[in-house]
């Protein structure tokens, strides 16, 4: 890779202090550090360092999202071609979905990274890697028919208002990807819900039905899908959220590498199961009667708990706090689903709510540590 190294070295003086494009240095560094981990050595502090940096951590999350992304593309095609009614192959389904989904991903990255670069240049700091993950998460939690301009607007809103005003990656309060979805959901509800957004509508379909399972249940109807379909994911829904199997493959990678907290994942599923079991006992309507274990398979619950709740910046930061945080996300997700069918996607609101509450949970956990210490101080002083 000498060629690439020479290429970067050739233009480096332009971006160094006193260079012609000095101000654009963060952009240059972002490109360079993407190609090469710089040869910088330790100046102060420990003289050896682990080979892990944020790029590696973030990229692992992107890798974990790939199975769900690829399956999502196939599923978009599958759902559409099934509506059309003609025979089709899996490959045709994937190709159809691929061309539907790729523009969303490109728009998300271009708009989001563009804003991140802009802020990095204005503030003169390095471009943080956080958006690598958000950029893929955002399209995956949107309906496939979302107009690109709404997507772009949501991305801009979430990066500027959700992240940069707080000081960038590491300082944000709520998960940027979920904020983008919430923005689109509340600003443009007609594009984000109903029974026509989840599957591209064929031009001459007679009997078009593309309601999500939760939407059907919310209206008090019984659903026509088996649990296997829910698990494997060939059901209507946001692009990346439908296949629990693919999400679990991603989760396995995150847990194996220890990038995501198993405490949050486990307690999230436990909370959701517990709440659903309680509702099962009442069984007052179709949503309450929906078997508790199937609650874990439908909607965005698995996707949210695995990929969004575990975002280390917006989750709680203490071990005890993680148990509480995950558990409450599970509880609230199912509760919102059941009590308020107008927003069937409870998990989004549950995580956003818990993002806001997370610092408070941490505060009390840390306060416990402080109280113990202060008690000892007073005893020693006495």
């Amino acid at each position, binding site marked *: 890779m000498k060629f690439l190294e020479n290429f970067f070295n050739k233009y480096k003086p332009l971006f160094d202090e006193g260079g012609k494009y000095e101000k654009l240095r963060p952009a240059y560094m972002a490109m360079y550090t993407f190609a090469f981990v710089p040869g*910088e050595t330790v100046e102060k502090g420990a003289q050896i360092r682990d080979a892990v940096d944020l790029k590696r951590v973030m990229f692992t999350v992107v890798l974990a999202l790939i199975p769900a992304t690829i399956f999502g593309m196939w599923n978009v095609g599958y759902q559409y071609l099934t509506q059309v009614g003609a025979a089709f192959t899996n490959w045709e389904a994937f190709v159809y979905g691929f061309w539907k989904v790729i523009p969303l991903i490109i728009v998300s990255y271009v708009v989001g990274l563009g804003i991140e670069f802009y802020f990095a240049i204005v503030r003169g700091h390095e471009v943080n890697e956080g958006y690598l993950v958000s950029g893929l998460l955002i399209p995956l939690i949107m309906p496939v028919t979302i107009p690109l301009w709404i997507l772009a607007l949501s991305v801009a809103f979430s990066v500027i208002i959700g992240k940069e005003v707080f000081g960038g990656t590491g300082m944000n309060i709520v998960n940027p990807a979920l904020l983008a979805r919430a923005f689109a959901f509340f600003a443009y509800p007609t594009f984000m819900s109903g029974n026509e957004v989840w599957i591209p509508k064929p031009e001459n379909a007679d009997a078009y039905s593309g309601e999500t399972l939760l939407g059907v249940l919310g209206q008090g109807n019984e659903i026509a899908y088996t649990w296997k379909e829910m698990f494997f994911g060939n059901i209507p829904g946001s692009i990346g959220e439908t296949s629990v199997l693919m999400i679990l493959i991603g989760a396995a990678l995150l847990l194996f590498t*220890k990038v995501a907290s198993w405490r949050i994942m486990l307690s999230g599923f436990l909370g959701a199961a517990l709440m659903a079991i309680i509702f099962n006992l009442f069984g007052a309507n179709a949503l309450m009667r929906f078997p508790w274990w199937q609650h874990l398979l439908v909607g965005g619950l698995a996707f949210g708990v695995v990929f969004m709740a575990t975002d280390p910046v917006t989750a709680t930061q203490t071990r005890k706090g993680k148990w509480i945080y995950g558990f409450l996300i599970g509880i609230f997700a199912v509760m919102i689903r059941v009590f308020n069918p107008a927003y069937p996607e409870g998990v989004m609101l549950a995580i956003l709510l818990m993002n806001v509450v997370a610092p408070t949970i941490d505060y009390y956990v840390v306060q416990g540590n402080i109280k113990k210490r202060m008690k000892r101080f007073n005893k020693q002083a006495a």
Partner: protein
Amino acid sequence: MYKTVKISKGLNINLKGDADRLLQKVARSKIFAVKPTDFYGVTPKLVVKVGDQVKAGEVLFFHKKDDRIKITAPVSGVIEEIVRGEKRKILKILIKADAEDIYKDFNLVDVAQADKNQILNQLLESGLFTYIKQRPYDIIANPDDMPKAIFISAYDSAPLRYDYDFALRKRLADFQTGIAALKKVSEAKIYIITNGNSVSDFDKIKDVEVIKAFGPHPVGNPSIHIEKFEPLDKNTIVWVVNPISVALMGSFFKTGKYNTEKYVALSGSKVKKPHYVSIKPGADLSEIIKNNIEEDARLISGNVLTGQNITKDPFLNYFDHQITAIPSGKKPRFIGWLPFIGENRKSFYRFNLSPWRKVQYDASLYGEERAFVMNEELESVMPLNIYPMHLLKAAMIGDVEKMEQLGIFEVAPEDFALLDYISSSKIDTQELIRKGLDEMKIQLG
């Protein structure tokens, strides 16, 4: 019965180049450097000038705010140069050493007979008092504040561990005398920490409480044991003394001479034959490097976690007893951030699919500094009962009250060395803790 301490949080990093338990003779260095920065918290007031003749044990400079704190010459010779930096800050005092040391004569004081003040006085006069570190704050002790307890860790759990058993095997009598002196000065309880997994000569030292330590690094750090047996607050003081310092004190009381010769470990993958040498603090290492260390190495005074880069200025720091040489590691790595294909370093994460592949640890930073994002990695190597990320953030903004509440009194920068290593955000946490401790000292006096 021994006391025991067992921890599970922490990390052992196995590096190549453990020093053989073998002493090799080296020629005496011609130049010695004493750096005031080694005496943390001391504002130097010079006593000597260029051209002065000094004996080993004679005062070079003292602490401006407390003239009882004296720093003395490790060797006899002529002051060759006083190197100053910005604002005329003294960086180092260079002494051109005599072929053989002439020692200043200190009155012989029998530890068993002498009273507390006599011993304290001897320690102060000889400069040996500066070998005592005080907690909280991790600074040179104040002779007015006597400690509640003294902690001596004879178990180095850091990578390429220094073997105190080997280094002091022949000096256990000195060590015992040093213990007696410390006991008399402080009238405090003395704890010695030794490796729980092996038998140590220090288990048999008298008049001390022995703590057997089990678990990964940093289990040898005194903070772990202080937290358990003598927890700190702003009014409680404990002393931390290195076993080598204790032996030096012992031999000083026996001979009346300030002879600071000690075993220094030459270790690390860039050392041709890792072994021990016997030299004095401040020694110019260039001769030793020439014969033993491969070119293009990073030279560290101390260990890889808490040591200082001395490649450009190879003098042994005053209180260090280890020299580590590792590859300097200045090469960019093409898409080196990809998981699973990178280097097989010890990590909190599981990014390596081939743990059998050996890796040479070099001094690469391996990434750029970022905001704190991941927190479990930090907690995983912090065995003290504190929340490291919260404490570090409080230190960043200099919030004195918060730092006290979160336990800053219980820590020293060395306790964060593993956090430096493990942090994917590449933030220098030891430096932050030092900054926090300084801030506390200024605010609380």
